[in-house]
C-alpha cells in the first residue's frame, strides 16, 4: 500500500561555467523525456558532456586513482620526501572506486558525496603533512589548492544532484462511510488541516484557487497558492501549486466505492520537490517525518474523523512520569493534540 520514490528530474539545471565562458557551442542534448504522470517510479539519467559532468569527475577520479596506485613512491617523495607508499595506494584505490562508481551512472549523488568525503580526508592528510619538517611547503600548498578546488566542484555537483529530485508518495485507506461523504469532507478545504499534520490552514481564494500555510521541517512556515486542476464530484479532486510558488507540488485524491459496498476507498497520490532535495527528505526523516508514513498517518486521521468524528489521543493523560504521553512512542498522539489545538 505504501509507496514512496525519490526520482531524478528529467532535465537538470546545470550551467558549466567553462562552457558558457567559451564560444557558443551548440550542445547536443538528448530529447527531454515527456513529463508523465508517474504511476511507476522511474529514474531518468541526463547525459551531459563537459569537464564538470559526473562522467568527467569520474574520469578525473580514475586518473588520480591510477596515479596513486602506479606511482605512490614518487608522489609521496615529491610531497614530503618520504615513502608513504601504502597510504598513497589506499588513497588511489579510493579514488578509483569513486570514479568507477560515478561512471556506472547509478546512485550518482552517493558517489559524489563519497568524493566529497575523500576530499575532506585528503585535506586532513595534507594538513598533517604540512606539519612535517621534510615537507615542501610550496608543493603542499599547491596540492592543497588543487584538492580544495576539486572539493568545491564535488560539493556543487552533489548539491545539484540532490536538488533535482522529487518525492512521489502514494497511499490509500478504506473508510466505513460512503464515497460521497468522504468526498464532501475533503472538498471542504477547511477540514484538511484537521487531518493533515503539517498543514496549518487552507483558505479558498476563488472558485478554483486556495492559499495554503504549512509547517515544514523544524517548524519553518511555508505558504503557497494552489489551483484545482480537475474535479469530478464524488470521484476525484486534483490540484497543483501555482507557478512561482516556493514549493512545487501536485496531487490527486480519488474516491471509490469499496467492493460489496464496504465503504469508501480513498487513494491519494502526491508529488513534490522538497526544499534541498533529498537532503531535505533525509533531514525530515531523521526528524520522524518520513513522507509516505506521514501521508499514511494523515489518512488514518481522516478515517477517524469520518468514522468517529474525532481523533483519539493520550496527550494529557496521567502517568508516573512528567509527561502523560511517552516522548519515545506517542509521537502520533502528541501531533494529534497540536491538530486539536488549532
Amino acid at each position, binding site marked *: 500500500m505504501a509507496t514512496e520514490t525519490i526520482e531524478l528530474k528529467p532535465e537538470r539545471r546545470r550551467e558549466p561555467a567553462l562552457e558558457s565562458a567559451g564560444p557558443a557551442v551548440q550542445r547536443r542534448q538528448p530529447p527531454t523525456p515527456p513529463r508523465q504522470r508517474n504511476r511507476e517510479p522511474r529514474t531518468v539519467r541526463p547525459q551531459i558532456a563537459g569537464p564538470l559532468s559526473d562522467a568527467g569527475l569520474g574520469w578525473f577520479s580514475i586518473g588520480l586513482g591510477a596515479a596513486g596506485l602506479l606511482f605512490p613512491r614518487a608522489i609521496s617523495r615529491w610531497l614530503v620526501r618520504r615513502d608513504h607508499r601504502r597510504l598513497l595506494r589506499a588513497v588511489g584505490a579510493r579514488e578509483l572506486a569513486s570514479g568507477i562508481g560515478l561512471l556506472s551512472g547509478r546512485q550518482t549523488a552517493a558517489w559524489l558525496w563519497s568524493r566529497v568525503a575523500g576530499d575532506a580526508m585528503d585535506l586532513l592528510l595534507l594538513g598533517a603533512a604540512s606539519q612535517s619538517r621534510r615537507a615542501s611547503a610550496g608543493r603542499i600548498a599547491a596540492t592543497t589548492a588543487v584538492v580544495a578546488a576539486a572539493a568545491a566542484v564535488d560539493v556543487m555537483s552533489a548539491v545539484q544532484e540532490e536538488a533535482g529530485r522529487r518525492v512521489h508518495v502514494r497511499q490509500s485507506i*478504506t473508510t*466505513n462511510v460512503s464515497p460521497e461523504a468522504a468526498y464532501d469532507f475533503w472538498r471542504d478545504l477547511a477540514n484538511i488541516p484537521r487531518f493533515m499534520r503539517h498543514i496549518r490552514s487552507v483558505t479558498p481564494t476563488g472558485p478554483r484557487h486556495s492559499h495554503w500555510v504549512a509547517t515544514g521541517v523544524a517548524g519553518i512556515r511555508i505558504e503557497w497558492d494552489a489551483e484545482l486542476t480537475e474535479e469530478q464530484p464524488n470521484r476525484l479532486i486534483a490540484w497543483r501549486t501555482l507557478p512561482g510558488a516556493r514549493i512545487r507540488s501536485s496531487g490527486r485524491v480519488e474516491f471509490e466505492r469499496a467492493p460489496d459496498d*464496504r*465503504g469508501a476507498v480513498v487513494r491519494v497520490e502526491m508529488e513534490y520537490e522538497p526544499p534541498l532535495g533529498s537532503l531535505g527528505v533525509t533531514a525530515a526523516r531523521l526528524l520522524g517525518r518520513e513522507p509516505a*508514513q506521514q501521508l*499514511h*498517518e494523515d489518512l*488514518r486521521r481522516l*478515517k*477517524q474523523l469520518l*468514522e*468517529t*468524528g*474525532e*481523533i*483519539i*489521543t*493520550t*496527550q*494529557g*493523560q*496521567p*502517568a*508516573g*512520569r512528567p509527561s*502523560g*504521553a*511517552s516522548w*519515545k*512512542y*506517542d509521537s*502520533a*498522539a502528541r501531533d*494529534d493534540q497540536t491538530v486539536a489545538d488549532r
Partner: protein
Amino acid sequence: MKANCWYGKKKVEVVEVAEPRILNRHDAIVRITATAICGSDLHLYDGVVPTMERGDILGHEFMGEVVEVGPEVKKTKVGDRVVVAFPISCGHCFSCQHEAFSHCENSNPNAWIAEKMLGHSPAGIFGYSHMTGGFAGGQAQYARVPFADVGALKVPDGLRDEQVLFLSDIFPTGYMAAENCNIRPGDTVAVWGCGPVGQFAIRSAKLLGAEQVVAIDRVPARLKMAKQGGAEPVNFEDSDVYDALLDLTAGRGPDSCIDAVGMEAHAPMMIGWYDRLKQLLMLESDRPFALRQAILACRNGGIVSVPGVYTGWIDKFPAGAMMNKALTIKTGQTHAQRYMRPLLERVQKGQIDPSFVITHRLRLDEAPKGYELFSRQDGCIKVVMDPWK
C-alpha cells in the same frame, strides 16, 4: 490519585499521579471500585513486551462508577456502575461493526508501531504498552475510558463487584477460547495453563457441552481448582502430556486444544533451556512450548485455540504437524464487548460465579506484592485490589 506504574523488569510501584480528565468527546471518567492483575500483566512485569515506558499506569481489568462523561457520550450516565472491556473500540469502523472489537481500526493512536511489528494493528488496550496505544490503565483510583458507550457495560445492583469484574477480560477471554473450539457433543478439550484464563476456558468448555476437559499445569493449587471446575488434571512435571492425552482419548487425541499459556511457557529440561537461551539472546521473543505441544497432541482435523498472548516471533513451529493433520488455528485478542452482555446473563442466571478464581484480595498499595505473589504462582491464581482501602 494513586496508580500502579511500571518502572522496569520486575519493578512496579504505586505512586501519586494526576487524576485523569476528559480528552476526547466520547470519553468517560470512572472512579474505580475494583481492579485486578491479569496474567498478561505478568508479561509486562517480566519485561518481555516491547514498547513499555517507565511510568506507564498498568491494568486493564477494572470496574467502578461513572463520575464524568464527555459531550458525545449518549448511553453511559454519571452514576452508572460499569465494568470496562479491556480493548478500546470505537463502534463505528468495519471491524467494530462486525463485532471484532479487538481489531478496532480507530482506537490505537500508535497503530504505526504495531503495523511495523505485526503488519496490522490491533485495537488500543488499557495499560498494555505503547504498541497498543500507550493508554493509562486501571490499576488506579480513576481511569479515563475512551468510547465509553462501547466499552463500559452497566451492571445491575444485585451483583457484587467480584462477580462481574472479570467480564472485563478473563471470563470473555476464556469463553472465546472455548467458543473457538466449536465444541460438539462428546468432544474432549485440552487446556494448557490453569491460570485465570485457563480456569475460565475450562468452565466455559463445560458450559458449552464438552464431554471431557483436560487441564495441564504443574502448580498443584491450579490443578486443584481446575478439578473443581470439572477438568481432568495432568501435571506435566509428573507425566508426559502427549501420552496422557492419548490415553485419556483412547488414541484419538483431543478434539481441540487451548493454549492459555502464551509466550512465557515453562518447559521441562532441555527444551525449556533452549527457548530461554534463545529468548535471552533475542533470537526469539516468545517461548512457545505449550503451543508446540498443543499442535502435536491435537487430533487430526482438530482445532487449536490460542488465547495466550504472543507478541513477536517463535522458533521451531511444528508446521508439518499443522499441515498434515489439517488443523484449524483460531486465536486473537478477545472481542470482549461481544461477550460481556451474554456472559453477564449467565452470571445473573447463576450458571457461573466468576469470583471462584480469586485467591488474594489486596489494597492497591500492595500491588507490588500482588505482582510478586502472582508471578511466583505459589497458590496465587487471581489478585483483586481495592483502590480506596
